[in-house]
């Protein structure tokens, strides 16, 4: 018997019924919703929210737009990353759209150096907001990792980067309400830890695949 035929025979022997994965967008929305709820709950539980933050959200259109942009970016990336974990379902344009929205959202803060959305202030400052952002991202990363491992991501490093970035940016986004508003503080201590979460996730998966002797992709 040729090796290929032997392999096919072995795979047939190993066959067990499986439940097909359907509604991948639904899974993405489930992960996003639960992660967002968890982030909001844990941030409220661990410290007070900036006084007047919700009033600013309802009365300042640009502040609302800023936050909606961040939310749309994370949501789009969440859907794109789940779709990328099923062969043939990944969409480069969706990923580009998610990345573009995220860049647009982040770009609002350097713009704030010239024309700030809100009056910069120390009001509501959380002492360890950068650590909070990183730590609160961990449970969504683990939950997402477990959900995606059950699928079949082809480009694991890329999927890890986007998943961890989305998970890291959720607490980073809510820190705009929970912590002080000042563009440089936001960029250094909210956004940067979110980006670092993405980089760490990608690096861990890259190293893990390299250790396994597989091409780190």
């Amino acid at each position, binding site marked *: 018997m040729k090796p290929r035929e032997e392999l096919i025979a072995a795979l047939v022997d190993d066959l067990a019924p499986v439940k097909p994965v*359907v509604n991948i967008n639904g899974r993405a929305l489930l992960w996003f919703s639960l992660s967002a709820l968890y982030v909001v709950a844990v941030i409220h539980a661990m410290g007070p929210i900036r006084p007047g933050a919700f009033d600013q959200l309802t009365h300042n259109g640009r502040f609302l737009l800023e936050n909606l942009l961040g939310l749309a970016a994370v949501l789009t990336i969440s859907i794109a990353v789940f779709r990328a974990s*099923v062969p043939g379902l990944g969409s480069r344009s969706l990923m580009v759209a998610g990345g573009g929205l995220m860049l647009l959202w982040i770009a609002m803060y350097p713009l704030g150096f010239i024309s700030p959305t809100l009056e910069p202030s120390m009001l509501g400052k959380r002492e360890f907001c950068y650590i909070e952002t990183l730590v609160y991202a961990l449970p969504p990363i683990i939950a997402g990792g477990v959900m995606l491992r059950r699928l079949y991501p082809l480009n694991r490093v890329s999927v890890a980067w986007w998943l961890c970035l989305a998970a890291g940016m959720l607490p980073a986004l809510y820190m705009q309400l929970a912590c002080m508003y000042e563009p440089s503080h936001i960029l250094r201590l909210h956004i940067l830890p979110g980006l670092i979460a993405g980089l760490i996730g990608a690096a861990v998966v890259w190293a893990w695949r390299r250790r396994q002797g597989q091409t780190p992709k």
Partner: protein
Amino acid sequence: MSAIGSTQYSEDEKRWAQLMVSSQAGDDAEYGCLLQEISVVIDRYLRGRFGHHDFVEDCVQDTLMAVHQARHTYDPCRAFRPWLFAIVRHKAIDALRAQRRRDVLIDSSATEQLNELEGEASEDHEQQISSGRLINSLDQPYREAIMLTKLIGLSTAEAANQLRISEGTLKVRVHRGIGRLKKMIEAEPV
């Protein structure tokens, strides 16, 4: 695509989708049939693009294993081909990236004889590889770099020496060449 070809294409699509649905339910006879059929298709697809080379057989087998591991991700409401060929393309590029220099332990007394044999083998390889449409469509610098390092199996130093370029330049050409192959293979309709 001709009318007959188009009919065959859609018949294959329907049959494979049906076979995969049965496989997901645990029907091993249908699964065996599906794997046999797609292994031939994958083999033909890869040889048409990369030429007749040993790594193609490895790639076919890797793909079959991937299909086995990923079979739960096939959604019966979707077409089968895009799902299958996403795996095939990924495995092909992955296999090409992972190609390493073949380690040959040689007895010093047989060096000359081996060099002659390797020379002949390289020519054979080049002829076989040149039938690969995708490889052939690469620009010459990238084609040469990939053929020498990934398909013939020379080390970076040997290939750089043969092409009279630095090792760094060769690595860049290989990297870019694989990137171009990836783009080309992803742009092809299934």
